[in-house]
Protein backbone atom coordinates (compact mmCIF):
# COMPACT_ATOMS: atom_id res chain seq x y z
CA UNK A 1 0.00 0.00 0.00
CA UNK A 2 1.39 3.41 -0.87
CA UNK A 3 1.19 6.14 1.71
CA UNK A 4 -1.00 8.96 0.49
CA UNK A 5 1.15 12.00 -0.16
CA UNK A 6 -0.88 14.54 1.67
CA UNK A 7 -0.01 18.12 2.14
CA UNK A 8 -1.68 19.50 5.27
CA UNK A 9 -2.36 23.20 4.90
CA UNK A 10 -3.24 25.67 7.67
CA UNK A 11 -4.64 28.82 6.13
CA UNK A 12 -6.50 31.91 7.34
CA UNK A 13 -6.31 35.60 8.06
CA UNK A 14 -3.11 37.10 9.47
CA UNK A 15 -2.74 36.72 13.22
CA UNK A 16 -5.29 33.94 13.74
CA UNK A 17 -2.68 31.44 14.93
CA UNK A 18 -1.77 29.48 11.80
CA UNK A 19 1.88 29.22 12.81
CA UNK A 20 1.06 28.25 16.38
CA UNK A 21 -1.42 25.58 15.30
CA UNK A 22 0.90 24.21 12.59
CA UNK A 23 3.67 23.80 15.12
CA UNK A 24 1.28 22.41 17.74
CA UNK A 25 0.00 19.80 15.26
CA UNK A 26 3.57 19.00 14.24
CA UNK A 27 4.65 18.63 17.87
CA UNK A 28 1.71 16.37 18.65
CA UNK A 29 2.57 13.98 15.80
CA UNK A 30 6.27 14.12 16.64
CA UNK A 31 5.53 13.15 20.26
CA UNK A 32 3.65 10.17 18.83
CA UNK A 33 6.85 9.18 17.05
CA UNK A 34 5.91 10.40 13.57
CA UNK A 35 8.33 12.29 11.39
CA UNK A 36 6.96 15.73 10.67
CA UNK A 37 8.11 18.48 8.35
CA UNK A 38 6.57 21.90 8.98
CA UNK A 39 7.11 24.30 6.08
CA UNK A 40 6.93 27.79 7.52
CA UNK A 41 6.10 30.91 5.56
CA UNK A 42 8.36 32.94 7.81
CA UNK A 43 12.13 32.98 7.43
CA UNK A 44 13.45 31.07 10.44
CA UNK A 45 15.06 34.13 12.00
CA UNK A 46 11.68 35.85 11.89
CA UNK A 47 9.89 32.76 13.15
CA UNK A 48 12.28 32.61 16.08
CA UNK A 49 11.10 36.09 17.05
CA UNK A 50 7.54 34.83 17.27
CA UNK A 51 7.90 31.38 18.79
CA UNK A 52 10.69 29.38 20.33
CA UNK A 53 11.10 25.59 20.55
CA UNK A 54 13.67 25.91 23.28
CA UNK A 55 13.80 22.92 25.61
CA UNK A 56 12.32 20.49 23.09
CA UNK A 57 14.88 17.72 23.54
CA UNK A 58 14.75 17.96 27.32
CA UNK A 59 10.98 17.90 27.63
CA UNK A 60 10.02 15.71 24.66
CA UNK A 61 13.05 13.55 23.92
CA UNK A 62 10.99 11.35 21.58
CA UNK A 63 9.75 14.32 19.57
CA UNK A 64 13.03 16.15 19.09
CA UNK A 65 14.47 13.88 16.36
CA UNK A 66 11.14 13.81 14.52
CA UNK A 67 10.15 17.44 14.25
CA UNK A 68 11.60 19.51 11.42
CA UNK A 69 10.78 23.11 10.69
CA UNK A 70 12.00 24.63 7.44
CA UNK A 71 11.63 27.85 5.55
CA UNK A 72 11.98 27.51 1.82
CA UNK A 73 13.68 30.55 0.41
CA UNK A 74 12.67 30.94 -3.25
CA UNK A 75 16.05 32.48 -3.97
CA UNK A 76 17.76 29.26 -2.89
CA UNK A 77 15.47 27.31 -5.20
CA UNK A 78 16.46 29.51 -8.08
CA UNK A 79 20.15 29.02 -7.27
CA UNK A 80 19.51 25.27 -7.15
CA UNK A 81 17.82 25.42 -10.54
CA UNK A 82 20.68 27.32 -12.13
CA UNK A 83 23.23 24.93 -10.64
CA UNK A 84 21.29 21.99 -12.06
CA UNK A 85 21.23 23.54 -15.52
CA UNK A 86 24.88 24.48 -15.51
CA UNK A 87 27.01 21.84 -13.85
CA UNK A 88 30.10 23.97 -14.40
CA UNK A 89 30.18 26.05 -11.21
CA UNK A 90 31.87 29.00 -12.86
CA UNK A 91 29.13 29.37 -15.44
CA UNK A 92 26.37 28.97 -12.85
CA UNK A 93 28.04 31.60 -10.72
CA UNK A 94 28.29 33.97 -13.63
CA UNK A 95 24.60 33.72 -14.29
CA UNK A 96 23.64 34.06 -10.65
CA UNK A 97 25.82 37.12 -10.33
CA UNK A 98 24.60 38.82 -13.47
CA UNK A 99 22.45 41.81 -12.75
CA UNK A 100 20.07 40.91 -15.58
CA UNK A 101 19.32 37.60 -13.95
CA UNK A 102 18.97 39.06 -10.47
CA UNK A 103 16.63 41.74 -11.72
CA UNK A 104 14.54 39.32 -13.73
CA UNK A 105 14.05 37.13 -10.69
CA UNK A 106 13.07 40.08 -8.50
CA UNK A 107 10.69 41.61 -10.99
CA UNK A 108 9.13 38.57 -12.71
CA UNK A 109 5.65 38.50 -11.18
CA UNK A 110 4.78 35.38 -9.24
CA UNK A 111 8.06 33.66 -10.03
CA UNK A 112 9.16 33.18 -6.44
CA UNK A 113 5.75 31.93 -5.36
CA UNK A 114 5.81 29.55 -8.28
CA UNK A 115 9.19 28.03 -7.39
CA UNK A 116 8.07 27.68 -3.81
CA UNK A 117 4.98 25.71 -4.80
CA UNK A 118 7.01 23.48 -7.08
CA UNK A 119 9.28 22.63 -4.16
CA UNK A 120 6.28 21.87 -1.99
CA UNK A 121 4.92 19.55 -4.66
CA UNK A 122 8.28 17.86 -4.94
CA UNK A 123 8.37 17.32 -1.19
CA UNK A 124 4.88 15.84 -1.21
CA UNK A 125 5.51 13.61 -4.19
CA UNK A 126 8.89 12.36 -3.12
CA UNK A 127 7.29 10.66 -0.18
CA UNK A 128 5.09 8.76 -2.57
CA UNK A 129 7.86 7.60 -4.86
CA UNK A 130 10.15 6.62 -1.99
CA UNK A 131 7.58 4.66 -0.08
CA UNK A 132 8.02 1.56 -2.25
CA UNK A 133 11.75 1.37 -1.73
CA UNK A 134 12.58 2.93 1.60
CA UNK A 135 11.15 4.37 4.77
CA UNK A 136 9.32 7.58 3.90
CA UNK A 137 11.24 10.72 4.70
CA UNK A 138 8.46 11.96 6.93
CA UNK A 139 4.93 11.02 7.78
CA UNK A 140 3.40 14.47 7.73
CA UNK A 141 4.07 17.49 5.57
CA UNK A 142 2.50 20.61 7.08
CA UNK A 143 2.39 23.96 5.30
CA UNK A 144 1.92 26.94 7.56
CA UNK A 145 0.53 29.06 4.71
CA UNK A 146 0.86 32.84 4.46
CA UNK A 147 -2.19 35.03 5.23
CA UNK A 148 -5.26 34.60 2.98
CA UNK A 149 -4.48 37.04 0.18
CA UNK A 150 -0.92 35.92 -0.25
CA UNK A 151 -1.93 32.28 0.11
CA UNK A 152 -4.38 32.58 -2.78
CA UNK A 153 -1.84 34.60 -4.77
CA UNK A 154 0.72 31.81 -4.27
CA UNK A 155 -1.72 29.09 -5.35
CA UNK A 156 -2.78 31.11 -8.34
CA UNK A 157 0.76 31.68 -9.59
CA UNK A 158 0.61 28.11 -10.97
CA UNK A 159 -2.51 28.94 -12.90
CA UNK A 160 -1.15 32.26 -14.15
CA UNK A 161 2.01 30.64 -15.48
CA UNK A 162 -0.03 28.04 -17.26
CA UNK A 163 -2.42 30.57 -18.73
CA UNK A 164 -0.20 33.43 -19.85
CA UNK A 165 3.10 31.87 -20.83
CA UNK A 166 4.66 29.19 -22.99
CA UNK A 167 7.85 27.21 -22.45
CA UNK A 168 9.20 25.11 -19.58
CA UNK A 169 7.62 27.20 -16.84
CA UNK A 170 4.19 26.98 -18.44
CA UNK A 171 4.49 23.20 -18.60
CA UNK A 172 5.54 23.11 -14.97
CA UNK A 173 2.64 25.44 -14.16
CA UNK A 174 0.16 23.05 -15.75
CA UNK A 175 1.66 20.13 -13.82
CA UNK A 176 1.49 22.07 -10.59
CA UNK A 177 -2.06 23.18 -11.19
CA UNK A 178 -3.07 19.53 -11.70
CA UNK A 179 -1.38 18.59 -8.45
CA UNK A 180 -3.12 21.35 -6.52
CA UNK A 181 -6.48 20.49 -8.01
CA UNK A 182 -6.39 16.92 -6.81
CA UNK A 183 -8.15 16.71 -3.49
CA UNK A 184 -6.26 13.53 -2.63
CA UNK A 185 -3.08 15.61 -2.41
CA UNK A 186 -4.25 18.39 -0.15
CA UNK A 187 -5.88 18.55 3.23
CA UNK A 188 -7.03 22.05 4.03
CA UNK A 189 -7.57 23.31 7.59
CA UNK A 190 -8.70 26.93 7.73
CA UNK A 191 -8.03 28.58 11.09
CA UNK A 192 -10.23 31.32 12.52
CA UNK A 193 -11.14 32.86 15.85
CA UNK A 194 -14.84 33.62 16.27
CA UNK A 195 -14.42 37.19 15.07
CA UNK A 196 -16.38 38.68 12.25
CA UNK A 197 -13.63 39.79 9.90
CA UNK A 198 -11.53 36.66 10.34
CA UNK A 199 -14.63 34.55 9.63
CA UNK A 200 -15.50 36.59 6.54
CA UNK A 201 -11.98 36.19 5.22
CA UNK A 202 -11.98 32.47 5.97
CA UNK A 203 -15.23 31.96 4.08
CA UNK A 204 -13.92 33.95 1.09
CA UNK A 205 -10.68 31.96 1.00
CA UNK A 206 -12.42 28.61 1.32
CA UNK A 207 -14.79 29.57 -1.48
CA UNK A 208 -11.97 30.76 -3.75
CA UNK A 209 -9.90 27.62 -3.18
CA UNK A 210 -12.93 25.43 -3.88
CA UNK A 211 -13.69 27.34 -7.06
CA UNK A 212 -10.15 27.55 -8.48
CA UNK A 213 -8.77 24.21 -7.31
CA UNK A 214 -11.77 22.08 -6.37
CA UNK A 215 -10.32 21.57 -2.90
CA UNK A 216 -12.76 21.45 0.00
CA UNK A 217 -11.67 21.87 3.58
CA UNK A 218 -11.33 18.92 5.93
CA UNK A 219 -12.28 20.74 9.13
CA UNK A 220 -12.51 24.25 10.45
CA UNK A 221 -10.20 25.04 13.37
CA UNK A 222 -11.79 27.54 15.72
CA UNK A 223 -8.98 29.13 17.68
CA UNK A 224 -9.01 30.97 21.03
CA UNK A 225 -12.58 30.00 21.84
CA UNK A 226 -14.29 31.24 25.00
CA UNK A 227 -15.29 28.61 27.59
CA UNK A 228 -18.88 29.70 26.88
CA UNK A 229 -18.65 28.03 23.44
CA UNK A 230 -18.83 24.60 25.00
CA UNK A 231 -20.98 25.48 28.05
CA UNK A 232 -24.47 24.10 28.76
CA UNK A 233 -27.64 26.19 28.47
CA UNK A 234 -28.02 26.39 32.25
CA UNK A 235 -24.42 27.59 32.64
CA UNK A 236 -25.12 30.26 30.06
CA UNK A 237 -28.26 31.31 31.93
CA UNK A 238 -26.25 31.63 35.15
CA UNK A 239 -23.59 33.91 33.66
CA UNK A 240 -26.13 35.96 31.73
CA UNK A 241 -27.61 37.05 35.08
CA UNK A 242 -24.13 38.14 36.15
CA UNK A 243 -23.54 40.17 33.03
CA UNK A 244 -23.86 43.60 34.67
CA UNK A 245 -21.96 42.79 37.85
CA UNK A 246 -18.70 44.30 36.54
CA UNK A 247 -17.13 45.50 33.29
CA UNK A 248 -14.99 42.36 33.19
CA UNK A 249 -17.99 40.03 33.42
CA UNK A 250 -19.88 42.19 30.97
CA UNK A 251 -17.07 41.79 28.47
CA UNK A 252 -16.60 38.05 29.08
CA UNK A 253 -20.31 37.27 28.83
CA UNK A 254 -20.94 39.45 25.78
CA UNK A 255 -17.93 38.02 24.03
CA UNK A 256 -19.03 34.47 24.85
CA UNK A 257 -22.58 35.04 23.61
CA UNK A 258 -21.33 36.57 20.37
CA UNK A 259 -18.96 33.67 19.85
CA UNK A 260 -21.76 31.12 20.36
CA UNK A 261 -23.87 32.90 17.82
CA UNK A 262 -21.08 33.08 15.27
CA UNK A 263 -20.19 29.46 15.74
CA UNK A 264 -23.75 28.46 14.92
CA UNK A 265 -23.78 30.73 11.86
CA UNK A 266 -20.49 29.25 10.70
CA UNK A 267 -21.83 25.72 11.04
CA UNK A 268 -24.65 26.73 8.70
CA UNK A 269 -22.55 28.57 6.12
CA UNK A 270 -19.61 26.16 6.13
CA UNK A 271 -20.93 22.65 6.79
CA UNK A 272 -17.66 20.95 7.75
CA UNK A 273 -16.56 19.52 11.13
CA UNK A 274 -15.48 22.19 13.63
CA UNK A 275 -12.55 21.69 16.00
CA UNK A 276 -12.80 23.95 19.02
CA UNK A 277 -9.45 25.04 20.43
CA UNK A 278 -9.94 26.94 23.69
CA UNK A 279 -7.87 29.99 24.53
CA UNK A 280 -5.04 28.71 26.71
CA UNK A 281 -4.63 30.81 29.85
CA UNK A 282 -1.56 29.38 31.56
CA UNK A 283 1.68 28.36 29.95
CA UNK A 284 5.28 28.42 31.11
CA UNK A 285 7.02 28.58 27.73
CA UNK A 286 6.24 28.60 24.03
CA UNK A 287 6.86 24.88 23.96
CA UNK A 288 4.43 24.34 26.83
CA UNK A 289 1.80 26.36 24.97
CA UNK A 290 2.29 24.32 21.78
CA UNK A 291 2.03 21.05 23.70
CA UNK A 292 -1.19 22.21 25.41
CA UNK A 293 -2.76 23.29 22.14
CA UNK A 294 -1.57 20.14 20.39
CA UNK A 295 -3.23 18.11 23.12
CA UNK A 296 -6.57 19.76 22.29
CA UNK A 297 -6.28 19.20 18.57
CA UNK A 298 -6.75 15.73 17.13
CA UNK A 299 -6.69 16.07 13.36
CA UNK A 300 -5.91 12.45 12.53
CA UNK A 301 -9.66 11.69 12.53
CA UNK A 302 -9.97 13.73 9.31
CA UNK A 303 -7.43 11.84 7.21
Amino acid at each position, binding site marked *: MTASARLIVFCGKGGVGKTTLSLAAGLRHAIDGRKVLVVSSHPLAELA*LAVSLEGLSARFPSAAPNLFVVYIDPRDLITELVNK*HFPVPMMAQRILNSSIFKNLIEIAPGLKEFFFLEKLQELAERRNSDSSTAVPDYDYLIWDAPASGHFLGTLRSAKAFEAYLTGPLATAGAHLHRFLSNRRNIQLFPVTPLEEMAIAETLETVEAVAKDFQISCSALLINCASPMCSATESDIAQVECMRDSSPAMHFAVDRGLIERERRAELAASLPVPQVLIPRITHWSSDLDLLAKIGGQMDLSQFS
Partner: protein
Amino acid sequence: MKIVVCLGTGGVGKTSVAASIALAKAREGAKCLVLTTDPALRLRTALGLKEGLLEQRVPVDEAEGELWAALLDVNATLDEAVRLYAKPRDQERILQHPIYRTIASSLSGMQELMAVERMDQLIRRGFDNLVIDTAPARHALDIFDKPVLFADFSDSGKVRLVSRTYKFAEALGLTSIGRSALEVYGRVESIMGTSMVKEILDFYSLFHPIAEGYSDRARETVALLRDHTVTEFRIVTIPDKALRDARFFVTELKKRDFATSMICVNRTWSHAMPQSVPQGFANELFDWYSSVSASHQRSIEKLRETFGTEIKEIRILSELERDVEGLDSLRRLADQLEPVTQPAARP
Protein backbone atom coordinates in the same frame (compact mmCIF):
# COMPACT_ATOMS: atom_id res chain seq x y z
CA MET B 1 0.84 68.26 6.60
CA LYS B 2 1.46 65.48 9.11
CA ILE B 3 1.68 61.76 8.41
CA VAL B 4 1.10 58.89 10.85
CA VAL B 5 2.13 55.40 9.70
CA CYS B 6 0.72 52.42 11.60
CA LEU B 7 2.76 49.22 11.55
CA GLY B 8 2.06 45.82 13.02
CA THR B 9 1.72 42.11 12.42
CA GLY B 10 -1.56 40.51 11.34
CA GLY B 11 -4.64 40.40 13.54
CA VAL B 12 -3.65 43.17 15.95
CA GLY B 13 -6.35 45.58 14.79
CA LYS B 14 -4.05 47.89 12.88
CA THR B 15 -6.76 49.05 10.51
CA SER B 16 -9.16 49.96 13.31
CA VAL B 17 -6.45 51.77 15.23
CA ALA B 18 -5.45 53.70 12.08
CA ALA B 19 -9.05 54.67 11.44
CA SER B 20 -9.58 55.80 15.01
CA ILE B 21 -6.36 57.84 14.99
CA ALA B 22 -7.74 59.56 11.90
CA LEU B 23 -11.06 60.13 13.63
CA ALA B 24 -9.30 61.57 16.68
CA LYS B 25 -7.32 63.95 14.42
CA ALA B 26 -10.47 64.98 12.58
CA ARG B 27 -12.11 65.81 15.91
CA GLU B 28 -9.22 68.17 16.61
CA GLY B 29 -10.27 70.03 13.49
CA ALA B 30 -7.93 68.58 10.89
CA LYS B 31 -8.99 67.56 7.42
CA CYS B 32 -7.91 63.99 7.68
CA LEU B 33 -7.57 60.97 5.44
CA VAL B 34 -6.90 57.35 6.33
CA LEU B 35 -5.38 55.09 3.67
CA THR B 36 -5.38 51.34 4.00
CA THR B 37 -2.88 49.40 1.94
CA ASP B 38 -4.31 46.14 3.21
CA PRO B 39 -5.66 44.12 0.30
CA ALA B 40 -8.53 42.72 2.39
CA LEU B 41 -10.45 46.02 2.40
CA ARG B 42 -11.16 45.79 6.11
CA LEU B 43 -11.21 49.53 6.46
CA ARG B 44 -14.47 49.60 4.57
CA THR B 45 -16.11 47.43 7.21
CA ALA B 46 -14.64 49.44 10.04
CA LEU B 47 -15.83 52.74 8.64
CA GLY B 48 -19.14 51.50 7.28
CA LEU B 49 -18.29 52.61 3.74
CA LYS B 50 -20.09 51.98 0.50
CA GLU B 51 -18.70 49.50 -1.97
CA GLY B 52 -17.07 50.43 -5.23
CA LEU B 53 -15.58 53.79 -4.31
CA LEU B 54 -11.87 54.05 -3.76
CA GLU B 55 -12.09 57.31 -1.90
CA GLN B 56 -14.98 58.72 0.05
CA ARG B 57 -15.94 60.98 2.88
CA VAL B 58 -16.79 59.12 6.06
CA PRO B 59 -20.20 60.10 7.41
CA VAL B 60 -19.07 61.41 10.80
CA ASP B 61 -21.03 64.12 12.62
CA GLU B 62 -20.32 67.67 11.58
CA ALA B 63 -18.85 68.48 14.98
CA GLU B 64 -16.34 65.68 14.47
CA GLY B 65 -14.69 67.39 11.51
CA GLU B 66 -13.79 66.11 8.09
CA LEU B 67 -12.72 62.52 7.70
CA TRP B 68 -11.92 60.76 4.43
CA ALA B 69 -11.00 57.19 3.72
CA ALA B 70 -9.05 55.79 0.79
CA LEU B 71 -8.44 52.21 -0.20
CA LEU B 72 -5.49 50.89 -2.12
CA ASP B 73 -6.59 49.09 -5.23
CA VAL B 74 -3.38 47.85 -6.84
CA ASN B 75 -4.89 47.44 -10.30
CA ALA B 76 -6.61 50.80 -10.29
CA THR B 77 -3.50 52.61 -9.05
CA LEU B 78 -1.38 50.90 -11.66
CA ASP B 79 -3.88 51.63 -14.43
CA GLU B 80 -3.96 55.25 -13.39
CA ALA B 81 -0.17 55.46 -13.45
CA VAL B 82 -0.18 53.99 -16.96
CA ARG B 83 -2.76 56.50 -18.15
CA LEU B 84 -0.90 59.39 -16.58
CA TYR B 85 2.64 58.60 -17.54
CA ALA B 86 2.79 56.31 -20.60
CA LYS B 87 2.91 57.66 -24.12
CA PRO B 88 -0.61 57.53 -25.57
CA ARG B 89 0.38 55.03 -28.28
CA ASP B 90 1.89 52.66 -25.68
CA GLN B 91 -1.02 52.74 -23.25
CA GLU B 92 -3.13 50.02 -24.81
CA ARG B 93 -0.11 47.83 -25.48
CA ILE B 94 0.85 48.02 -21.83
CA LEU B 95 -2.64 47.41 -20.54
CA GLN B 96 -3.06 44.37 -22.81
CA HIS B 97 0.39 42.96 -22.21
CA PRO B 98 0.50 39.40 -20.79
CA ILE B 99 3.03 40.45 -18.15
CA TYR B 100 0.81 43.32 -17.11
CA ARG B 101 -2.03 40.86 -16.65
CA THR B 102 0.20 38.54 -14.68
CA ILE B 103 1.24 41.42 -12.45
CA ALA B 104 -2.39 42.22 -11.88
CA SER B 105 -3.10 38.66 -10.73
CA SER B 106 0.03 38.36 -8.64
CA LEU B 107 0.91 39.90 -5.34
CA SER B 108 4.63 39.79 -5.68
CA GLY B 109 5.76 43.28 -5.01
CA MET B 110 3.07 45.29 -6.72
CA GLN B 111 1.15 45.86 -3.51
CA GLU B 112 4.19 47.50 -1.97
CA LEU B 113 5.09 49.49 -5.05
CA MET B 114 1.62 50.85 -5.55
CA ALA B 115 1.16 51.74 -1.89
CA VAL B 116 3.82 54.41 -2.22
CA GLU B 117 2.37 55.58 -5.54
CA ARG B 118 -1.02 55.93 -3.88
CA MET B 119 0.49 57.82 -0.96
CA ASP B 120 2.01 60.19 -3.43
CA GLN B 121 -1.35 60.70 -5.16
CA LEU B 122 -2.93 61.53 -1.80
CA ILE B 123 -0.16 63.75 -0.44
CA ARG B 124 -0.84 66.12 -3.31
CA ARG B 125 -4.47 66.48 -2.36
CA GLY B 126 -4.20 68.96 0.49
CA PHE B 127 -5.07 66.98 3.60
CA ASP B 128 -3.80 68.19 6.99
CA ASN B 129 -3.33 64.67 8.25
CA LEU B 130 -2.66 61.42 6.49
CA VAL B 131 -2.93 58.17 8.46
CA ILE B 132 -1.52 55.10 6.73
CA ASP B 133 -2.42 51.57 7.62
CA THR B 134 0.27 49.24 6.22
CA ALA B 135 0.01 45.63 5.08
CA PRO B 136 -0.25 43.17 7.96
CA ALA B 137 3.17 41.63 8.25
CA ARG B 138 6.62 41.93 9.62
CA HIS B 139 7.65 42.66 6.06
CA ALA B 140 5.37 45.73 6.10
CA LEU B 141 8.51 47.81 5.84
CA ASP B 142 8.92 46.44 2.33
CA ILE B 143 6.63 49.21 1.19
CA PHE B 144 9.45 51.64 1.91
CA ASP B 145 12.29 49.44 0.66
CA LYS B 146 10.89 47.99 -2.54
CA PRO B 147 10.27 51.26 -4.38
CA VAL B 148 13.94 52.06 -4.03
CA LEU B 149 14.90 48.62 -5.39
CA PHE B 150 12.48 49.10 -8.23
CA ALA B 151 13.90 52.50 -9.00
CA ASP B 152 17.35 50.95 -9.22
CA PHE B 153 16.03 48.30 -11.57
CA SER B 154 14.41 50.71 -13.96
CA ASP B 155 17.56 52.79 -13.94
CA SER B 156 19.63 49.80 -14.87
CA GLY B 157 21.01 50.64 -18.27
CA LYS B 158 21.80 47.04 -18.99
CA VAL B 159 18.19 45.93 -18.95
CA ARG B 160 17.27 48.68 -21.34
CA LEU B 161 20.17 47.82 -23.58
CA VAL B 162 19.26 44.14 -23.67
CA SER B 163 15.65 44.79 -24.41
CA ARG B 164 16.48 47.28 -27.15
CA THR B 165 19.03 44.99 -28.73
CA TYR B 166 16.56 42.19 -28.52
CA LYS B 167 13.86 44.14 -30.26
CA PHE B 168 16.27 45.35 -32.86
CA ALA B 169 17.61 41.86 -33.55
CA GLU B 170 14.14 40.47 -33.65
CA ALA B 171 12.98 43.08 -36.12
CA LEU B 172 15.80 42.07 -38.43
CA GLY B 173 15.04 38.40 -37.96
CA LEU B 174 18.30 37.90 -36.13
CA THR B 175 17.03 36.56 -32.86
CA SER B 176 19.73 33.93 -32.50
CA ILE B 177 22.50 36.40 -33.27
CA GLY B 178 21.07 38.86 -30.81
CA ARG B 179 21.00 36.16 -28.25
CA SER B 180 24.48 34.79 -28.72
CA ALA B 181 25.82 38.29 -28.49
CA LEU B 182 24.35 38.44 -25.04
CA GLU B 183 25.52 35.16 -23.74
CA VAL B 184 24.34 35.33 -20.18
CA TYR B 185 20.99 36.48 -21.28
CA GLY B 186 20.75 33.52 -23.66
CA ARG B 187 21.46 31.13 -20.84
CA VAL B 188 18.89 32.72 -18.61
CA GLU B 189 16.44 32.07 -21.40
CA SER B 190 17.28 28.41 -21.48
CA ILE B 191 16.15 28.16 -17.87
CA MET B 192 13.13 30.39 -17.82
CA GLY B 193 11.98 29.86 -21.37
CA THR B 194 12.30 32.30 -24.24
CA SER B 195 8.77 33.62 -23.97
CA MET B 196 9.01 34.51 -20.30
CA VAL B 197 12.24 36.45 -20.63
CA LYS B 198 11.14 38.10 -23.85
CA GLU B 199 7.81 39.13 -22.39
CA ILE B 200 9.42 40.62 -19.31
CA LEU B 201 11.98 42.60 -21.25
CA ASP B 202 9.41 43.71 -23.77
CA PHE B 203 7.11 44.80 -21.00
CA TYR B 204 9.73 46.73 -19.10
CA SER B 205 10.89 48.53 -22.20
CA LEU B 206 7.30 49.74 -22.60
CA PHE B 207 6.85 50.32 -18.92
CA HIS B 208 10.08 52.20 -18.51
CA PRO B 209 8.76 55.78 -18.66
CA ILE B 210 6.20 54.94 -15.99
CA ALA B 211 8.83 53.31 -13.84
CA GLU B 212 11.09 56.31 -14.18
CA GLY B 213 8.40 58.77 -13.12
CA TYR B 214 7.41 56.39 -10.38
CA SER B 215 10.94 56.16 -9.00
CA ASP B 216 11.23 59.92 -8.72
CA ARG B 217 7.93 60.21 -6.90
CA ALA B 218 8.76 57.26 -4.64
CA ARG B 219 12.08 58.79 -3.62
CA GLU B 220 10.33 62.03 -2.70
CA THR B 221 7.66 60.22 -0.69
CA VAL B 222 10.17 58.12 1.23
CA ALA B 223 12.16 61.28 2.00
CA LEU B 224 9.00 62.80 3.45
CA LEU B 225 8.51 59.75 5.65
CA ARG B 226 12.03 60.16 6.92
CA ASP B 227 11.37 63.77 7.92
CA HIS B 228 10.72 63.57 11.68
CA THR B 229 8.85 66.87 11.68
CA VAL B 230 6.32 65.44 9.21
CA THR B 231 6.01 61.73 9.86
CA GLU B 232 5.64 59.61 12.98
CA PHE B 233 5.43 55.82 13.10
CA ARG B 234 3.18 54.02 15.56
CA ILE B 235 3.58 50.34 16.31
CA VAL B 236 0.30 48.53 16.85
CA THR B 237 0.44 45.25 18.74
CA ILE B 238 -1.47 43.03 21.17
CA PRO B 239 -0.34 42.07 24.70
CA ASP B 240 0.87 38.55 23.87
CA LYS B 241 3.02 39.79 21.02
CA ALA B 242 3.91 43.22 22.43
CA LEU B 243 7.51 42.71 23.48
CA ARG B 244 8.51 40.72 20.40
CA ASP B 245 6.77 43.07 17.96
CA ALA B 246 8.23 46.15 19.63
CA ARG B 247 11.74 44.71 19.57
CA PHE B 248 11.42 43.93 15.88
CA PHE B 249 9.78 47.11 14.64
CA VAL B 250 11.71 49.57 16.81
CA THR B 251 14.97 48.11 15.47
CA GLU B 252 13.81 48.03 11.86
CA LEU B 253 12.47 51.58 12.02
CA LYS B 254 15.64 52.86 13.60
CA LYS B 255 17.69 51.20 10.85
CA ARG B 256 15.76 53.21 8.27
CA ASP B 257 15.89 56.42 10.29
CA PHE B 258 12.12 56.52 10.81
CA ALA B 259 10.77 57.98 14.05
CA THR B 260 8.75 55.70 16.38
CA SER B 261 6.42 57.85 18.47
CA MET B 262 4.08 55.37 20.10
CA ILE B 263 3.42 51.72 20.83
CA CYS B 264 -0.33 50.98 20.95
CA VAL B 265 -1.13 47.78 22.81
CA ASN B 266 -4.52 46.96 21.37
CA ARG B 267 -7.06 44.35 22.41
CA THR B 268 -6.01 44.37 26.06
CA TRP B 269 -8.28 42.74 28.62
CA SER B 270 -8.17 45.42 31.25
CA HIS B 271 -11.80 45.76 32.32
CA ALA B 272 -12.59 46.30 36.00
CA MET B 273 -13.09 43.04 37.92
CA PRO B 274 -16.01 42.17 40.20
CA GLN B 275 -15.58 42.18 44.01
CA SER B 276 -16.86 38.65 44.43
CA VAL B 277 -17.93 35.88 42.09
CA PRO B 278 -20.44 33.08 42.77
CA GLN B 279 -19.55 29.43 42.34
CA GLY B 280 -20.19 27.29 39.32
CA PHE B 281 -19.68 28.23 35.71
CA ALA B 282 -19.62 31.97 36.46
CA ASN B 283 -16.56 31.32 38.57
CA GLU B 284 -14.95 29.33 35.78
CA LEU B 285 -15.61 32.14 33.31
CA PHE B 286 -14.28 34.74 35.72
CA ASP B 287 -11.13 32.68 36.29
CA TRP B 288 -10.65 32.46 32.58
CA TYR B 289 -11.03 36.21 32.13
CA SER B 290 -8.76 37.10 35.02
CA SER B 291 -5.98 34.70 33.95
CA VAL B 292 -5.93 36.18 30.48
CA SER B 293 -6.11 39.69 31.92
CA ALA B 294 -3.26 38.99 34.35
CA SER B 295 -1.06 37.65 31.58
CA HIS B 296 -1.81 40.80 29.57
CA GLN B 297 -0.75 42.96 32.50
CA ARG B 298 2.51 41.03 32.84
CA SER B 299 3.27 41.47 29.14
CA ILE B 300 2.60 45.20 29.34
CA GLU B 301 4.81 45.58 32.40
CA LYS B 302 7.65 43.88 30.54
CA LEU B 303 7.07 46.16 27.58
CA ARG B 304 7.23 49.25 29.79
CA GLU B 305 10.41 48.01 31.47
CA THR B 306 12.08 47.49 28.10
CA PHE B 307 10.81 50.41 26.06
CA GLY B 308 9.41 52.86 28.62
CA THR B 309 12.34 55.23 28.27
CA GLU B 310 13.01 54.81 24.56
CA ILE B 311 9.47 55.26 23.25
CA LYS B 312 7.67 58.44 24.18
CA GLU B 313 4.31 56.83 24.70
CA ILE B 314 2.92 53.37 25.35
CA ARG B 315 -0.85 53.39 25.01
CA ILE B 316 -3.10 50.60 26.27
CA LEU B 317 -6.38 50.05 24.40
CA SER B 318 -9.10 47.83 25.85
CA GLU B 319 -10.57 45.16 23.64
CA LEU B 320 -14.18 45.66 22.58
CA GLU B 321 -16.63 42.75 22.80
CA ARG B 322 -17.05 42.58 19.07
CA ASP B 323 -14.99 43.55 16.04
CA VAL B 324 -14.64 47.23 15.41
CA GLU B 325 -17.45 47.76 13.01
CA GLY B 326 -19.08 51.03 12.21
CA LEU B 327 -18.40 54.43 13.63
CA ASP B 328 -19.61 53.86 17.17
CA SER B 329 -16.92 51.33 17.97
CA LEU B 330 -14.35 53.54 16.25
CA ARG B 331 -15.42 56.40 18.50
CA ARG B 332 -14.89 54.20 21.56
CA LEU B 333 -11.39 53.41 20.33
CA ALA B 334 -10.67 57.04 19.44
CA ASP B 335 -11.76 58.07 22.96
CA GLN B 336 -9.07 55.79 24.35
CA LEU B 337 -6.48 57.19 21.95
CA GLU B 338 -7.10 60.90 22.21
CA PRO B 339 -9.75 61.56 24.84
CA VAL B 340 -12.10 64.35 23.75
CA THR B 341 -11.90 67.18 26.27
CA GLN B 342 -15.22 68.66 25.22
CA PRO B 343 -17.30 65.79 23.92
CA ALA B 344 -18.78 66.55 20.53
CA ALA B 345 -22.57 66.77 20.55
CA ARG B 346 -24.04 63.73 18.95
CA PRO B 347 -27.64 63.51 17.84
